[in-house]
C-alpha cells in the first residue's frame, strides 16, 4: 500500500516503514502549532544532523529544557505570552484560567497528553503532603490562597482564584517554568497511591533511594532531564542516563510544532552535550567542537574565537546580553555595621558612589566600547524602556560625587586622603564577589581606582556564592557584586518583583526582602520610605488586572529604583559571543541573550535551526 512519507524526517522513515512508529498524522496533535518560517524571515530547512554543544557540568543538561523552550505558554519575541503546548488559554477577570490542550497531543512515548496529567500533578503531587510539604508552588498561591482546580473535560482544565493572579502565566512561560502537569501514566508506578507496593519496594531498592518520595521526586525531574524514561513534550528527548560525560538527545516523534509546510519540527535530529571543564570550552569551540555555543564563552574570548573561525568552521556573532547590567555593585542596606548602614542608606552616598565611576573607561577597557554605560534598569528591548532610568546617576562626575559625599557627612579625610565615616573610621569598603570571571575582577579594580579619587578605598574579596549570600544576609558584607536585573527586557505583564523587596536573595535589602517574602515572619520590616513604596507597588501589581495598570506600576517602580540607586549598575547591553557553525541555518544574526525571558536560544525557536547538509553532519566527529 503506497504511503506518503515525504514529510517525514528521514531518520524516522525506517521505523515507520517497519511499523515501530506511527505515521506523522497519528503522531501530531490535530492542530499542531505551526511556525511560519518565511514570515519570520527564516528559511524552511532540511532534516538531519547533530547539533553539538559543550557544557561545563553534568547538571547543565537542563539547558536542553531551557533551549528547546516548549512550555504550556511561551513568550514570543514581542514579549507577549502565547500558547505553545496549549492550544488556547482563556482568562476571566485575571483570575480564572481555562487551559485548552491540543487534541491528540501525545507524550514522547506516544501516550496521550490529557487533563489527567494535570489532575495527577495537582491532586497527587502538589497537594500530597509527603511530596510537597509546603504545598503547591508559590506562583499558584495568591495571598495564601490555593486555586480551585477543575478538570473540565479530557483536554480542558481550569485554575480559579478569588483574586487576580497575573503571575500565573508568566510562571508557566518561564525559562525555568512552573510545571503543573506530569505524565501520569508513567509517574503512577512510583506513587504510593497507585503503585503495587512490592514493585515499588523493588524500585526503591534498585534506585538506592530512601523512600518512595525520593523515588518519585527523582523520576519526575523534567527540568533537569536526568531520567531518559520520563516522557517529555520537548523537541528532543534525553537518551543518556547520568552519570555520563556525553549526553545525547533524540528528536521527539510526537513533538507538537510543525513548519509552514506541515513538516514536524525540529529539523535537527540529535543534540549532544559533552561535559568538560568549563574553562576549556573556548579552546574546544575554537577547535570547532561545537555547533551552537554561547554558554561558557565570554566576551573576553571573542578575539580568540574570531581568530579560530576559519579553522573551526564557525562564525562568532555578538548578541546583546539581557541583564540590567553586566555587573552591579549592591550596597547592603541591611548591613550589620551601623556606621556603614547609616551611610549606605543615605541616597547621596549611593549616588556619589555611582557617579564616581568612570563607566566610559570601563566600557572601553573591557568591552571595547561595545557595551552601554548606564544604570541597572530595563533595556531598550523592553517596552518599558526609558532612557531617563538608564542615565540616572550614571554620568561620570567626580566633583559631584565629592560634593554629595561631603554633604552626606563624609567630609573629613585622613592623611592618605581616605574619607572618614561619621563615626571616624576610614571609608574602606570590602566588596564581596563570587566572580569567577576576570571581567568582574577587572571592573572592580577599575572602580577601585575611581573611588580612590573620591576618597573611598575598595577591597575586593572573593568568596563562594553561597557564602556571599550568607554574609549578605547576615549583614557581614557591606557591598556585593552581582549581575543586574535578571530580566531587563521585561514587559508589564511580568512580575516586577526584582525591583522591590520581595526575597532574601536581593542583596541590596536581604532582610527586607525576607520580611516581605515570609510575610513578616522573618527579616526586618522595610524602613526606608522608598522601599516601602516599592513593596506597596509590587503588591498593587499582584492585584492588577489590565496591562495598562501594570505598565504604570512598573514605570513608577523603575523610576524609584533609578532615582534611589539601590544598585549601582555599571555597563549594560554588553555583548555575548555566540558561536554558530557555518552550516547551521536560521540562527539570528543578532539577538538578546538572556535567561528570562527568552530562555537563551529558546525564544528564537531552536527547533527551527537546521544544518545545510543535514545528513552529512552525522558523519562529522562528535567532538
Amino acid at each position, binding site marked *: 500500500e503506497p504511503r506518503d512519507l515525504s514529510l517525514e524526517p528521514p531518520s524516522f522513515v525506517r521505523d515507520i516503514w517497519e511499523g515501530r512508529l506511527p505515521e506523522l498524522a497519528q503522531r501530531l496533535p490535530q492542530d499542531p502549532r505551526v511556525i511560519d518560517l518565511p514570515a519570520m524571515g527564516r528559511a524552511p530547512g532540511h532534516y538531519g544532523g547533530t547539533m553539538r554543544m559543550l557544557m561545563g557540568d553534568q547538571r547543565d543538561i537542563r539547558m536542553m529544557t531551557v533551549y528547546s523552550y516548549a512550555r504550556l505558554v511561551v513568550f514570543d519575541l514581542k514579549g507577549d505570552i502565547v500558547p505553545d503546548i496549549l492550544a488556547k488559554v482563556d482568562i476571566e477577570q485575571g483570575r480564572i484560567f481555562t487551559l485548552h490542550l491540543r487534541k491528540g497531543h501525545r507524550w514522547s512515548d506516544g501516550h496521550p497528553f490529557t487533563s489527567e496529567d494535570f489532575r495527577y500533578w495537582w491532586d497527587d503531587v502538589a497537594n500530597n503532603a509527603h511530596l510537597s510539604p509546603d504545598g503547591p508552588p508559590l506562583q499558584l498561591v495568591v495571598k495564601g490562597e490555593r486555586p480551585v482546580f477543575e478538570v473540565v473535560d479530557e483536554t480542558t482544565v481550569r485554575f480559579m482564584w478569588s483574586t487576580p493572579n497575573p503571575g500565573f502565566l508568566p510562571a508557566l512561560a518561564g525559562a525555568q517554568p512552573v510545571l503543573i502537569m506530569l505524565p501520569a501514566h508513567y509517574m503512577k508506578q512510583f506513587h504510593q497511591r497507585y503503585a503495587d507496593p512490592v514493585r515499588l519496594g523493588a524500585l526503591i531498592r534498585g534506585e538506592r533511594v530512601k523512600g518512595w518520595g525520593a523515588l518519585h521526586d527523582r523520576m519526575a525531574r523534567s527540568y533537569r532531564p536526568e531520567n531518559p524514561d520520563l516522557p517529555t513534550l520537548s523537541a528532543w528527548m534525553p537518551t543518556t542516563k547520568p552519570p555520563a560525560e556525553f549526553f545525547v538527545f533524540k528528536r521527539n516523534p510526537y513533538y507538537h510544532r510543525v513548519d509552514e509546510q506541515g513538516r514536524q519540527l525540529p529539523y535537527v535530529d540529535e543534540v549532544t552535550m559533552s561535559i568538560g571543564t568549563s574553562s*576549556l570550552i573556548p579552546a574546544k569551540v575554537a577547535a570547532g567542537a561545537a555547533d551552537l555555543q554561547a554558554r561558557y564563552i565570554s566576551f*573576553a574570548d571573542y578575539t580568540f574565537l*574570531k581568530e579560530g573561525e576559519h579553522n573551526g568552521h564557525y562564525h562568532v556573532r555578538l548578541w546583546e546580553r539581557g541583564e540590567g547590567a553586566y555587573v552591579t555593585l549592591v550596597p547592603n542596606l541591611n548591613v550589620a555595621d551601623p556606621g556603614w548602614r547609616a551611610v549606605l542608606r543615605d541616597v547621596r552616598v549611593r549616588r556619589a558612589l555611582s557617579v564616581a565611576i568612570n563607566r566610559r573607561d570601563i566600557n572601553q*577597557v573591557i568591552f571595547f566600547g561595545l557595551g552601554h554605560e548606564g544604570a541597572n534598569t530595563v533595556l531598550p528591548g523592553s517596552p518599558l524602556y526609558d532612557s531617563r532610568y538608564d542615565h540616572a546617576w550614571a554620568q561620570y562626575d567626580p566633583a559631584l560625587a565629592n560634593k554629595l559625599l561631603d554633604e552626606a557627612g563624609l567630609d573629613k579625610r585622613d592623611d592618605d586622603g581616605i574619607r572618614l565615616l561619621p563615626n571616624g573610621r576610614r571609608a574602606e569598603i570590602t566588596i*564581596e564577589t563570587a566572580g*569567577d570571571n*576576570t571581567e568582574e575582577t577587572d571592573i572592580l579594580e577599575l572602580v577601585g581606582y575611581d573611588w580612590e579619587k573620591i576618597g573611598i578605598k575598595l577591597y*575586593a574579596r572573593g568568596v563562594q556564592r553561597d557564602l556571599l549570600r550568607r*554574609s549578605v544576609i547576615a549583614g*557581614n558584607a557591606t557591598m556585593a557584586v552581582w549581575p543586574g536585573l535578571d530580566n531587563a527586557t521585561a514587559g508589564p505583564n511580568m512580575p516586577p518583583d526584582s525591583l522591590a523587596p520581595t526575597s532574601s536573595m536581593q542583596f541590596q535589602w536581604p532582610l527586607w526582602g525576607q520580611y516581605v517574602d515570609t510575610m513578616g515572619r522573618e527579616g526586618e520590616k522595610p524602613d526606608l520610605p522608598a522601599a516601602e513604596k516599592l513593596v506597596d507597588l509590587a503588591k498593587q501589581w499582584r492585584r492588577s488586572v489590565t496591562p495598562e495598570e501594570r505598565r504604570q506600576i512598573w514605570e513608577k517602580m523603575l523610576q524609584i529604583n533609578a532615582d534611589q540607586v539601590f544598585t549601582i549598575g555599571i555597563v549594560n547591553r554588553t555583548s555575548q559571543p555566540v558561536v554558530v557553525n557555518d552550516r547551521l541555518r536560521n540562527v539570528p544574526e543578532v539577538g538578546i541573550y538572556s535567561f528570562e525571558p527568552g530562555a537563551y536560544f529558546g525564544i528564537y525557536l531552536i527547533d527551527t535551526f537546521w544544518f545545510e547538509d543535514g545528513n552529512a553532519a552525522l558523519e562529522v566527529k562528535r567532538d
Partner: protein
Amino acid sequence: MSATTHSLPPPGAPLDHFVDDAPFDPYATEPMTKAQERIYLASQLTLMWWKFKRHRLAVVSGLFLAVLYASILISEFLAPYNYTERHTDFIRSPPQAVHLFHDGNFIGPFTYGLTYTLDMEKLRRNYTEDTSRIYPVRFFCRGDSYRFWGLVEGNLHLVCPGEGGTLFVLGTDRLGRDMLSRLIYGARISLTIGLIGISVSFGLGIIIGGLAGYYGGWFDLLTQRAIEVVQSLPHIPLWLALSSVMPPTWSPLLVYFGITIILGLMDWTGLARAVRSKLLSLREDDYVVAAQLMGAKTPRIVFRHLVPGFMSHLIAMATIAIPSMILGETALSFLGLGLRPPITSWGVMLNEAQNINIVVLYPWLILPVVPVIAVILAFNFLGDGLRDAADPYR
C-alpha cells in the same frame, strides 16, 4: 731531606737491609704555613664559607638572589612605573623594544612612539612603532609617584620613559599596567612568601620529625598518626575551610600572611616523616651515644648531631619547597583563595595568565614564569653550594 732514596731489589732478589740515613727528630713537625694556621682554628661556619666560595655557580646564584632580595627593598625606585598605574591607551601592548640606534645614529637607549589601532572586527588592539617619534629613556628621573613602603611619598625612579613616551619593556596587561613594574613589585610578595612558608613547614617538620625519630616509642607512634591524619586530609578542602575561617575584615596583607602560614602548615608532614625515618637509623650510631654520655639535652642531640647528617636532603628539599611555595599561592588563586588586589605577586600574575586566550594572543603575559624559573634555579644551585659546603667529604 734524606740522601738515600730507597730502591727496591730486582724481583725475586733478597731484600737488602735499608736504613734511611736522614737525621731523625721525633719532635720535628712540618712548619705550618700561614694558610694552615688560619685554617686550623677556624670555626666550622668559616670553613663552610670558604668551601662555598669555591662553588662558582652557587656564588653566582647567591649573588643573584641577594640582588633580587635587595631589590624588593627598593621596588618602587626600580620599577619604571607605579604598578597600579593604568595606561588606558596601551592595553595589552606587547613588549616594546628599547633601541640604541636610529637611522644608524647612536642616540642612547630610547623607544619609539606607539600608535594604536583598534581592530573592531577582531576586537583587538594593534600597536605599531612610530619611528618618527623618539623618546630617549631617562635615568634617575621623576616619574609616577608612589609611597615608598606605603610610607613616604616619592617619585624618583631608576629609569623612566622619555617625556611623553612609553617604556613597556615587558608589555602591558589587560588593564594597561606595565608588566615589568608589576613583576618588580610582585617580587616582594613572591620572594618572601616562600621563605615564611618554608620556615613554618621546615620548623615543624624538623622539630616534630626529629623528636619522633629520636625518641621513638609512643611519642613516635602518636606523631606518626597525627601526620597520617594531616596528610590524608587533602589540601583543597582544608584550604577552602581555612580560608573561609579567615575573617573578611582582614586586610590583604594579613590575608597574605594567613595564606603563607597555611601553605607552611600543610607542608611539614612529608619532611617530618623523612626526618623521622632517617633519625630512626642514625640514632643508633655511636656518636649519638657519645653525645648522650656527655649529658647533652635532646634538642642538642637532635639538632647538633643528628640533623646535620640529613643536611643534604634538607637543603635539597628546602630549595625545592621555596618555588613550590611561590607557586602554591598560584594554586590558591586558582581556587579563588589567593591574594587579592591591590597586592600583586608572581603567582597572581601567572594566575591571570591561566587562559588559553593569553597563551595564544598575548603570550608576553606568561613572562612571570621567567623570574620564577630563574629564582628556582638560583635557589637550587645555591642549595648545591650549601650542600657541598656542609659536606665534610669534599
